[in-house]
């Protein structure tokens, strides 16, 4: 079910994959998307202010 826990789970998975990848650009992309999901999770949990834009 969608929620902050879901987002954190997906971010954790991307981060884990990034640790197995040597290509710098690919790692950076995974980490950026993971960070974005974590930021949204923080917003949902009320520990970060909401962004005005969805992405």
């Amino acid at each position, binding site marked *: *079910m*969608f929620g902050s*826990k*879901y987002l*954190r*789970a*997906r971010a*954790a*998975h*991307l*981060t*884990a*994959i*990034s640790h*197995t*990848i*040597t*290509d710098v*650009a*690919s*790692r950076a*992309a*995974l980490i*950026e*998307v993971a960070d*974005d*999901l974590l930021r*949204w999770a923080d917003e949902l949990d009320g520990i970060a202010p909401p962004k005005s*834009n*969805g*992405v």
Partner: protein
Amino acid sequence: MLVYQCYLLGEEFRLLARQDFNADGDTEALATARNFTWEPMPHSFELWEGTRRLTGEAIIDQAPISLADSRNSTQVTAIAGTATRQAPAAERSACPPEERVAHTPACYQDGIVSEAQKLRDKAAHAREMAAPLTDAHACAALQALALELEQQALDLE
């Protein structure tokens, strides 16, 4: 022989550990994952074969699941057994994500972006990030995420 990855998740679904192993198929992989001994006991786990997830979606749907009270493998078996009966999000989708997006209103009437739309925006963002990547695993992971986020958006509506 396929290579599987078992991810152990703690509280708040934070990643605790990863264990890679080989198995001849999903059934053997699931049996292998069930027999892992973890200290501390995980909150939940996900089993992947490359970018294909075997158990995670069902576990998240049922979350939170605590294994702390169950020190034997019975509950792990039950969770994994239930999870394997769940079809992946991409398979449950009745139509391609591109078609589903077209039928979804972008905003609520007050102009605040809905969570469903935000999920779709994140999915589009993940696809954009995946497009130029040279690493196939990273690219597939982001594309799989995009599909999953779109399915979540669909489920919200």
